[in-house]
């Protein structure tokens, strides 16, 4: 029963080594941090910022799927909704970057609360479809609301002074701001997964009925993890809007919801680091193959199919199996 369900237990209990695993994880986090600190000096900073934003988005999404057992097909609503709010705040109200991101995050949290409280009434496939439908409502709203600029989106979003003091307009300076947010976000998710709250989530994922009989308010936990996931997805979207100085309909379209599922699935949904790897791979693929037009879509579809048929643990999941350690 390793992978009978989407929410199945990935870890073979015999190989679990509770003392060393956190050390390993911290080591990987440290290596990632060192890599990302050095990266802008030999890789293109805008590309790296895109990877970071999508890594946070994928991790936030995966908190819900991999650890909450809930497949949302509407996470674009939070990602895109927050990017509109943050872009609008920075451009029209002159908000500083950190406040714009904070406001976008807050908006995503509220949206997550509204959608989540309705969506958790259904399970499994219904849950996926309900989130999809709500995301579609957010899409139509974004298309028509005057402040979003319709199809043009909100363009030429300024990068204001950080804390009102520091000039971080240049890509490389801005990169470190983005790194701080995204890395912080991912660490927070890691912390949540390993908190008592995260343990209850796992219990619910494994056996909802038993958790109810143990006295847990299952729906409250589900709603809480939904809101947290939506909020952090919002943080990613709000940051991305400032990176590209643009908030557009792409961010709220349902294909974005599909993309984040693909990132998590490709990297490994039962892993901490999988979504990061998945996001990096998909973003790189989109960048390098931009010249091939619709073949990008075909390739993405093919990766989906292959991942579902042959590769359900994802890349990092497979590596974790080799190492006999949860990653």
């Amino acid at each position: 029963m390793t992978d009978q369900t989407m929410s199945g237990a990935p870890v073979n209990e015999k190989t679990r080594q509770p003392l060393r695993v956190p050390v390993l994880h911290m080591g990987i986090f440290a290596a990632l941090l060192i890599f990302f600190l050095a990266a802008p000096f030999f890789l293109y900073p805008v590309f790296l910022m895109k990877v970071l934003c999508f890594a946070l988005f994928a991790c936030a999404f995966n908190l819900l799927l991999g650890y909450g057992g809930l497949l949302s097909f509407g996470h674009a609503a939070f990602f895109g909704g927050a990017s509109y709010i943050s872009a609008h705040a920075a451009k029209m109200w002159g908000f500083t970057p950190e406040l714009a991101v904070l406001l976008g995050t807050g908006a995503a949290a509220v949206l997550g609360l509204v959608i989540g409280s309705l969506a958790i009434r259904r399970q499994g496939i219904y849950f996926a479809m309900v989130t999809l439908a709500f995301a579609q409502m957010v899409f139509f709203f974004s298309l028509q609301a005057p402040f979003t600029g319709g199809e043009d989106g909100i363009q030429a979003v300024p990068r204001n002074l950080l804390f009102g003091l520091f000039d971080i307009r240049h890509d490389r300076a801005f990169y470190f701001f983005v790194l701080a947010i995204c890395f912080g976000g991912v660490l927070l998710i890691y912390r949540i997964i390993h908190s008592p709250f995260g343990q209850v989530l796992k219990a619910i994922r494994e056996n909802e009925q038993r958790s109810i009989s143990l006295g847990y308010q299952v729906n409250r936990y589900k709603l809480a993890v939904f809101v947290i996931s939506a909020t952090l997805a919002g943080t990613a979207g709000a940051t991305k809007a400032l990176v590209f100085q643009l908030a557009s309909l792409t961010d709220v379209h349902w294909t974005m919801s599909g993309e984040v599922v693909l990132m998590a699935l490709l990297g490994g949904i039962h892993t901490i680091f999988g979504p990061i790897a998945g996001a990096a791979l998909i973003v790189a693929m989109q960048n390098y193959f931009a010249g091939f037009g619709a073949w990008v879509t075909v390739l993405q579809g093919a990766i989906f199919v292959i991942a579902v048929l042959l590769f359900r643990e994802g890349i990092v999941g497979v590596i974790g199996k080799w190492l006999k350690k949860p990653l």
Partner: protein
Amino acid sequence: MFELLGIAPQALFGQLLLGLINGSFYAMLSLGLAVIFGLLNIINFTHGAQYMMGAFVAWMLLTYFGLSYWWALVLVPVIVGASGIVIERLMISRLYHLDHLYGLLLTFGLALIIQGLFRNQYGVSGMPYSIPPELQGGTNLGFMFLPNYRAWVVVASVVVCFGTWFLIEKTRLGAYLRAATENPTMVGAFGINVPRLITLTYGFGVGLAALAGVLAAPIYSVNPNMGADLIIIVFAVVVIGGMGSIMGAILTGFGLGLVEGLARVFYPEGSAVVIFVIMAIVLLIKPAGLFGRTA
């Protein structure tokens, strides 16, 4: 004549009739989804792409083989349905022992592949497909001009939908199908080949989508993206109807077409979201959907 909120009743009739025509497509597509879901427990995200394939294959038959619309009505569901059977055998059948969500993800990937391939091959401007000569022109109903083709779409859709309902609810084959949904092992023990039944059901559901595509080809632009956005509306229709019954899918499809028709008169800006709003309300009041069985 009295007027209702500033709209003459004649105009309202016209709009309701148009709503019914759209509802025909919703009904056929949600019916196909419901049939597939009923037996395979798979949400067929490829449904929109298969609807598009239906329209495209009709166009290909006409362009490359000179086969008319009427031939397409018969051949296309068979051809596209057969492609569905191949997909079911090669891929979907490997997922039955897993969480249903994997089926959703697989078919989502397939939809991306199919739409991408058609985009590469045919571009997106769309292909012209004319209304067959027998159905050109229209009838003046007094309150509106009804094109004969649209009338045909409603009739064809009603016949197909209720034919399917009859097949599943009232025949022996349908009884096997429903039994296999409830307890495949038991039905297998009676000597019925359940995997084949499942495969054929998928092919049938896909055939329904393709048939809707053929019906749509003369009135909507035949292009690779024609099913991409429609599928999400149909999903919402299915959520509102509830997955429990075939009749539910049919009635909800037609009903929501009517509601959308009304929205287009009274609040055109909101007509695209009205279905999603109804979905939210239904979920609040009756989480299993209007006709669904409570899980």
